[in-house]
Structure formats: C-alpha cells, structure tokens
C-alpha cells in the first residue's frame, strides 16, 4: 500500500460540535459592577489611592502595589475615548454581532484602564483612536457586561 503526497483521495474534512458546559461566577466585585450597569446604568471602577490608578472592570487587588481595593469604589463617566480598535470580519454564533463589527478598547473618563466593547453607529472605515464615544445600555438584562449594549460616537 503506497500513497503519494499529491494523492488527495483520502483527504476529508470532518465537522462536529463541541459542547462546553460553563459555570461562570462573576465574583463579588464583578457582580456589583454588572448590577450597577443593569440597575443604574452606571460604570463602576475601583481606585487605588496609593498608586492613584482607577481600574475598570474592577479587580480586588491593585496590580502594582497589591493593595486590597474591594471597598474603593468610584463611579465613572458613561463617556470615554477609543484607545484602540479592530474590525471583526468573521461570523460565529458565539460572537455578539454579525460581521463586520467594531470591537474597540474604550477608556471611560475617570478610568486609567481601557476595556473592550462594541462600537456601533459608525462605519468601520471611519473609526479613529482618540474618538469620543458614549455608552448605550441594553433594554433587557443578560446579567453580563452586555447590559452595557455598546458604545456610540458622541
């Protein structure tokens, strides 16, 4: 039995599905962050007084000085700037939008860290870093970061 490398008669493509049971716990800080988005349409962060840095989404410890930040809540603006972005050009059912859509890193006013989110209301060619955007909140809750539905240009 010999086959040559060029012989493609045995080549085939198999398709299937993989089910991945997930149980995600948002944590105490993560829960409070999502609940504030959901119930009050507010973006919360935590502030390390020692380093003078505001982190969003909140985290329990300062990444620089390891101070505990779980009680150091600050309310941030619903507006911010795009610090970077990409255009998602493929479709998959787990993705939040049909392609193409803009996935940007947005630093809301008052925060020192950007976080990724969807930008709508502007064509992909027209997005620029430094652009001002504002948060648009979801009408129906999913108890996730998508309770903030997307950002749009101011």
């Amino acid at each position, binding site marked *: 039995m010999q086959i040559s*490398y060029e012989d493609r008669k045995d080549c*085939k493509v198999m398709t299937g599905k993989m089910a991945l*049971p*997930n149980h995600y716990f948002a944590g105490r800080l993560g829960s409070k962050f999502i609940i504030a988005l959901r119930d009050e349409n507010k973006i919360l962060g935590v502030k390390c007084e020692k380093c003078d840095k505001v982190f969003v989404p909140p985290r329990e410890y300062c990444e620089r000085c390891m101070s505990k930040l779980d009680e150091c809540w600050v309310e941030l603006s619903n507006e911010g700037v795009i610090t970077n972005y990409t255009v998602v050009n493929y479709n998959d059912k787990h993705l939040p939008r049909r392609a193409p859509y803009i996935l940007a890193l947005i630093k809301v006013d008052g925060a020192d860290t950007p976080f990724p989110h969807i930008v709508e209301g502007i064509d992909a060619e027209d997005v620029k870093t430094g652009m001002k955007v504002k948060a648009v909140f979801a009408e129906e809750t999913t108890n996730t970061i998508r309770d903030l539905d997307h950002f749009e240009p101011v």
Partner: protein
Amino acid sequence: MAEYFGTAVEDIFNTMEERFLSEGTLDVDVTIGYNISGEGGGNWKVTIKEGTLKVEDADGEVTDCTAVLNANAETFVGVTLGKLDAGEAFSSGNIKVDGDLTVLVAILPKAFKPFKPVIKASAIVESVEERFLPEKAEGVDIKIGYDLSGDGGGQWTVVVKDQTCTLKEVLDDDCTVIMRMEAQVFVDLNQGKLDGGTAFSSGQVKVDGDIGVAGQSASLFEKYVAEGAAEEEGEELISLKCVPSINQRYATGPTMGKWFDGLKEKKFFASKCPQCGRTLVPPREICAQCRVRCNEFVEVGPDATVTLIDVVYYASPDPLTGKIRETPYTALFMVLDGVSRDESFAHDLNPKDIDRIKPGMKVRPVWAEKRMGTYRDLLYFEIAD
C-alpha cells in the same frame, strides 16, 4: 398536611440532613428531643455526635435526651423561620425546654444552616393573578398552558385577555403556548437559578405552540417572591451557566484520512518509516525520529496488548455531548499487534472489564454497527478471552 407560614413541621426535620454542618459539631455529643403539639406535630429525636447526625421519628415517646423542646406546631415553625421571636416564645411559655437549655442555644446555630421554606411550583402558579401587571398587557390576548410534572406540579391555563388575568386548574386545548417541564425546573426558573434560554436549549423545557409568546409572557407578571424571602435577601451575586456549542472542523489530510477509512472497514492502518522501520499508530506523515516522509501503510491489530491503564473517577463532561460522563471510565493504552513496542495507542475500555484489566492483557476492539469513518466507529476495547 398542616402548614404554618407555608411550611410544615415535617419539612424542617426532613431537611435537617441537607442543612447539617458536620464540621461545626466535631466535639458535640447530644440528643435533642422535640415534642411538637397540634396539627402536623409529632415527636422527633435528633442525635448529633462527633460530626454525625441522626434524625428519628420518635413515635410518641422522647426519652434519653440531653434536652427536650416542647412547643406547639405554629410556634415551632414560626421560630425556625424567624417569623416569631424566640425570646418571646420562651418567656411567654410557648416553648418550654426540659433539660439543658444551653445545649440548644450553643449547638443548634453551629450544627445547621438556617431553614429556608421549600418553594412549590403550585404556589408560584397560583399567585399569578396577584402578580399580573395589567398595564403591560394592553392588546394581549393569549392563553398560556403549564404542564408541570413531578412533586408540586400540575396543569394550569393562564388566560390573559382585556387586561385581566384568570387562572384555571386545567390545561385548555386551545392554548397559545404550552410549556412542559419538571415542577422543580419551573421553580428554578422563577427563582432565577436557571436561565430560560439554557433550560430550553438543554431540553429541560418543552414548548408547544408560539415560542415567542413563551419568551415574552414573563414581562406580564411581577417576579415571584417567596413569603419572607425579601427580608433576608443578602448581597446579590451573579453566576451564569451556559453550554456554548462550538463548531469544529477537522481536515484529516491524506494520512489520518487513511486511518479513518480503515476504521470504517474494521481495520487499523499504521504508517511505516522507510528508514527505521517503526510503525506509527495512528499513522503520521513524518517519522519524527528520522525526519523522513512515511508513505507506506501496513495493516496492524486488531487485537492489542495493554501497556497502561488510567481509571478516571472525575466526572468530567464529554466534550462531544456536554453530558457528564459515567464514572469510573478507563483510558486504555495498548500496543496493537504488529506495531513497534513503544507506539501505544489509547481508547476506552468496556466498563464491565474495569475490575479485571491488568497490564499485559490481550484486548480486542468492539466495533459500532454503523461505522462512519470516525473515532466513534470503535466503541471500546474489551478483554479477549
């Protein structure tokens, strides 16, 4: 069954085992008797000893106890649920304790998690008229059927028309939508323990009729709040369960394609290195030791010799179905007949052979009836004797 504050005396004793905190009672050795008078009452004997718990129906007589608690059923349930003040119940004589009172006060809070009333599906459905929000139902004309099986279940039709809501204890034939599920699933959905989408996609909820109505009907009603639940609400924490299904695409290439074609014909093909002569299972295009292309295939097996056995007790999900696997299961490493000694190959073992399997044993493949040219063509290996 007599209920007080929506709870029967029995419920409290029946849930003791699941509420028991053994680590809090490692140095405890007491027996507590309960004489509960009135409808739904009775006698119980609860023994807590070095982290173990025994709850007995004392059948009329409570003897040999460290302490005995006497109360009427309503007081007992009320105090347990926190609806009645325990101190007041003692001072008014509604609760009397014979024997060592400090045993109760010191040990019980350490030994049990607080009792939470069991929420019944029927209680949720029966409150639907009170929870109806007429202002959300303008122009809505639907009949929602509930067919809930199991404990606390039943059949109901909720009629929403002309901004009024009526409940019927029967399942009408002309419902806009009928939702069928276990009563407990319904309770979990209403308690926010289970997400509607997940319950539906995992088949726990079956919907007959207009599925859009099923989704939107929730907005017509206020959320169900169990009696007393709101007062003890703690910090809200978010946890999400979901089972994403990821599309997979695997291109076999010519070599693995040959292997899968072989499985379809109940054959194993190994590739053979033209330089060192070793056989590779499953076949590979390149011999990684000689770094030459292997173009020759040889048929090997189908019997094999076991080299290593992994018995797995961890109930992991099967990635192909999302279902939790039966445990224990065995990953069997073996060398197919005619294959070089160090080229072992892994597959499942027939679960019935788990107790007998030993390294060095001969095993044979068991094939699926219908073979599609995938790994599933091989069900498992079993001991060949």
